[in-house]
């Protein structure tokens, strides 16, 4: 696995390394592992029963969301809390095109992604001028606006939502989610290695310094934001097809985004596989908790978030891989962050 960076200072809560990782060997190891995981993922549905396939599809969903969030929140340092807006755009566009336009899924989904990217570019041109806190709140506001809009308009079925045609069998969703996840991870891998990726890292690290070195920040921020939106929409479209029913309150929900953020942070922000690892761990925990008590699993998750934030703010990978040991790294984190 590609290792997350060593201890650094908090810039925006996402201690991230820019640019290509220094070690070719680490790259090669990571790629080999990823290839192995991909092959395993491709054959799993043939081996496991549907219950587990569903769970893993859910993990893929959050893997996409976490990786996508990482592009804007981790790499660029703009913590987006309204990602579910794009999830919803993808879901509703796919749904409406399939239901009323009788389009096949394979056409409806990309349409949703592109629409979301355009919306992100438009919104981003306004919102990405804002600083961290305000950006977070404004994006949240955007999500709430879309929620209210879809609840009020007829084309989206108003408060009752819309139904989608059913698919042939469950593995359709599994493979689409896997495909989208591969795209998300590839985006996370490619971006830091490109010229745009350097701009984004520089902007995250020090926007003023980046500007006097020839980087005009807004276009690059919009790029990251639109990429994030595209991927959220992909996940949303597939999710809508899977659920066959979407309505405003469930899809335009900050829970999706917060889970994505928590997973990205705890797997290791600014790394390629960190968000996916975070998704796997936290989603699995979530499933286990749900089985213990359906009713209280949110309470447990809330408590878990609090504990993780206090004791492992730099992510679980950091904690477990720290050379000084688990307790020492927890102590260090506390010493750095407490009053």
């Amino acid at each position, binding site marked *: 696995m590609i290792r997350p*960076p060593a201890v*650094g*200072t908090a*810039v925006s809560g996402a*201690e*991230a*390394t*820019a*640019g*290509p990782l*220094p070690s070719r060997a680490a790259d090669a190891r990571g790629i080999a592992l990823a290839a192995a995981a991909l092959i395993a993922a491709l054959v799993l549905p043939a081996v496991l029963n549907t219950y587990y396939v569903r769970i893993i599809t859910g993990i893929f969903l959050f893997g996409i969301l976490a990786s996508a969030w990482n592009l804007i929140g981790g790499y660029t340092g703009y913590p987006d809390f309204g990602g579910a807006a794009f999830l919803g755009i993808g879901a509703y566009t796919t749904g409406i095109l399939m239901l009323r336009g009788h389009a096949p899924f394979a056409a409806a989904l990309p349409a949703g992604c592109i629409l979301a990217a355009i919306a992100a570019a438009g919104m981003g041109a306004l919102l990405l001028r804002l600083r961290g806190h305000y950006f977070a709140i404004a994006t949240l506001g955007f999500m709430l606006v879309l929620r209210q809009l879809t609840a009020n308009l007829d084309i989206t079925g108003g408060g009752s939502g819309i139904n989608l045609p059913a698919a042939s069998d469950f593995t359709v969703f599994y493979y689409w989610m896997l495909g989208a996840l591969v795209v998300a991870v590839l985006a996370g891998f490619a971006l830091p*290695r*490109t*010229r745009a990726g*350097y*701009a984004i*890292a*520089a902007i995250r*690290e*020090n926007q*003023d*310094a*980046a*500007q*006097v*070195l*020839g*980087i*005009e*920040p807004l276009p690059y921020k919009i790029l990251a934001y639109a990429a994030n939106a595209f991927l959220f929409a992909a996940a949303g479209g597939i999710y809508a097809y899977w659920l066959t029913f979407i309505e405003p309150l469930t899809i335009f929900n900050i829970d999706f985004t917060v889970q994505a953020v928590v997973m990205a942070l705890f797997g290791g922000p600014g790394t390629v596989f960190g968000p996916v690892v975070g998704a796997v761990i936290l989603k699995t925990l979530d499933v286990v908790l749900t089985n213990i008590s359906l009713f209280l699993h949110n309470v447990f998750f809330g408590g878990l978030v609090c504990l993780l934030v206090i004791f492992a703010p730099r992510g679980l990978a950091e904690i477990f891989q720290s050379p000084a040991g688990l307790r020492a790294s927890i102590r260090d984190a506390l010493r750095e962050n407490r009053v």
Partner: protein
Amino acid sequence: MALLAAAGVTKLFGRLAALNRVDVAIEPGEIVGLIGPNGAGKSTLVNLITGMETPTAGRITFDGADITGRRPAAIARLGIARTFQIAQPFRNMTVRQNVAVPSLFRAARASGVAEALDRADGVLDLVGLGAKRALPARALTTPDLRRLELAKAIALGPRLMLLDEVMAGLTPAETDAEMALLRRINTQGITLLVIEHVLRVVMGLCRRIVVLHHGTKIAEGSPQAVTSDPAVVAAYLGVRHAGRDDAGPR
């Protein structure tokens, strides 16, 4: 024609005039010094030239073109580089990556990543940071961070460099080395505007000095002329003679 000309530049913060109708012209190839007590407006002038702030009044032209109020990134690409008084590295990127950034962005389609990284190596060797290229910038000492600032400015490939107190806190030997480096950069065709408190540097490097005080230009001329100007001496209460080697006026 002057490379950089600031005409009647005024900057007000509320009712405080950080700069008041300042005229400065820098000819190509010069090394011009900008001195003045703290709060004189030196950094403000640099901020205005580089586009980080907009003047309340006045015009700034670079190579004949009006750059007043243009965006910082555009001005950087026109060929004006600056260092910051407090170094502003990209902390979590390596030294090499830090210097690659200006290489990548100095023109709209400047270069690829690999090419920029190679070019960065050359610049790092020039400033003496070659050995530390793979370290993350946050691991550098303050003098090294200053060198990194300089390296990034050089890597932008500018025609004009605005240096904001790059010599502060250096030993005499280090100061000499930096001065030699700046002279070398200058002979390669880069015009320099040097803000400094260290008088020895200003006297030794600059052919011409501009003195600011409370936002106005109070003197301009050769180092000897300026440092014996009674107005300048009065502005710097702590200086009794010109040409002293210490840290300079406070």
